[in-house]
């Protein structure tokens, strides 16, 4: 089980488009993904869950990955955040 902290760099925050990219990316891996914002946790492979995060630009999220491919999953997800989900 590993954790990574990421920041939302997108101006519009984690709206529907990037949320969908996030979920799609997470789905490629076997590992479970939990996303935590402040005291709130959701399943990162659930689009409705990610939608409720209401994460705006600048907010910090903690990604928790648990499974055989957790390292690769973490790397892919962190990169996605850094690339601003290819939106900007």
């Amino acid at each position: 089980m590993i954790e990574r902290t990421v920041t939302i760099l997108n101006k519009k925050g984690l709206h529907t488009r990037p949320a969908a990219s996030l979920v799609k990316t997470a789905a490629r891996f076997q590992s479970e993904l939990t996303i935590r914002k402040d005291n709130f946790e959701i399943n990162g492979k659930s689009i409705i869950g990610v939608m409720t995060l209401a994460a705006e630009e600048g907010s910090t999220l903690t990604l928790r990955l648990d499974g055989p491919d957790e390292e690769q999953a973490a790397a892919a997800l962190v990169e996605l955040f850094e690339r601003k989900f290819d939106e900007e």
Partner: protein
Amino acid sequence: MDSPDTGKAQEVEIVLKGIAAAPGISLGPAYLYSKAVPRVQQKVIRADEVASEIERLRNANQRSEKELQKIHAFAEQKLGSQNARIFEAQIMILGDSILMGTIEKRIASEMKNAEFIVADEISKYKQLMLAAHDEYMHERALDVDDVMNRIIRNIQDQKLFSRLEGESIIVSETLAPADTIIFSRNQILGYATDLGGVTSHAAILARSLKIPAVVGLRSATKAVHTGDALAIDGYAGVVIVHPTEETLQALERKKQRFREFEERLVDIAGLTAETLDHKHIELSANIEYPEEIQFARVQGAAGIGLFRTESQLIGKPAYPTEEEQYQAYQTISGEVYPHSVIFRTFDVGGDKISPDTAHEANPFLGWRGIRVLLDRPDLFLDQLRGILRASTRKNVRIMFPMISTVQEIRQAKALVAQAKKELDDRGLGYDPHIKIGVMIEVPAAAVLAEEIASEVDFLSIGTNDLIQYLMAVDRDNAAVAPLYQQFHPAVLRTIKHVIDAGHKRGVWVGMCGEMAGDPLATVLLVGLGIDELSVLPSVLPEIKKIILSIRQKDAKRVAERLLARATEQEIRDELSALIRNKVPEIPLDL
């Protein structure tokens, strides 16, 4: 010989007044469309029923997805991909395997019926989204609610909407984006709603389908039954129930005149609004939602003369932040570019800003407009900063409503200066030379127009309220409404005074009240020297046609002559005759 009493009740003609949302005239039967929220009852199921219950859920999901794909395709075709995107979120939720997996597990473990678990589980997410202080999240909550109800309806096997027999005019409380699918399945002649402003996906759709729409009728759903004969006039913003033969004929004539006129309008849109002797009139549009910009452009508007920012406040649980406002204003200024947009700061009663405001006996003469904003500088500054930040393309102007004193202007301008300084400190850009104007609607401001003009860059005459204040009449009060006289000599002389005062101080004077969009008033206003007219996009071409057909020199003579008249009727009659002679093809509603 007396005809026998058939016992049939005389159906009285009822005229309902609303807001014109899409032009056109249609006659046909009404269809009362109501979207009831499905009722969900909790039921206990047996262990051997679990499998079939899960099957019900899966089938309902599949059907829901098919429906949404159809709606999405239709919306993309008729409204463009931007607007169609709103359905993507709903389709994704249907495909959320974690969510659906949880629901199926709960059906099995709790042994309850599918629709109850669906409602219970999805509502959790809905509540979380509603709890966020974010307009975007609230809209997503609506999406979640919509898809949830769709799934439940399909589980319950309820048909939301049946095919109509023949053509109909839809009458409804409101029309949500997903409801627009009804336009594809049936021959809709037009629609009328109780609620709503001039925009919304339904209005955009109606305009692109070229069918009339009237909104804001308040009680249409109460006055109309399915099958009632209706006439809908999307030019006047009127719906008539059980129209008489006379009314029907008048409408047919009007329809014909507009059809002929509109065929020639395509050419007008691209022309500049200039009189025959080359007096240029800035002809712009009054709007309140960004979705209306496209229509304004198509109609040939030279910019937005009045953008009502109150739409930022409607339907929101909390006052919008500077950031939220900036995003909205920035989108608008970008879409309007290279034309200009004038943002009017919040023109609402105090209760819209401070919910704990004491009830006013006389809100029209009370705490509203600039008065509220000056008393709440924190909120005023949020809006000013939002507007300033959206002005980097240098096509934005600010306008203050309900100004009564020079002091108010100076206070407001001081706050603009403060907002600019705050943005400097934050390293954010704005147009340092942003133009500032005020609405002239309070009589005191009209009288003092010259002094006021010295403080600002432009004046805009708000005739709706100006006339009410001048004539001491509430136009919604049927007992005295006839006193709301646009062509009352006192109104005309006041307008002349304001225009002259503005010009004396070197500022331009425009008009954004309804009078600006009244074809009967155009010649007069041009003759009085108006520089700008900001009107509803739907009437813009008519006004332009008149301007193109006259000479300002002649208009001046007309204005001089009419200013000497003492009664409204004389003035009105002369203007009607004038238009009928000079610009006979204008399909006036006389």
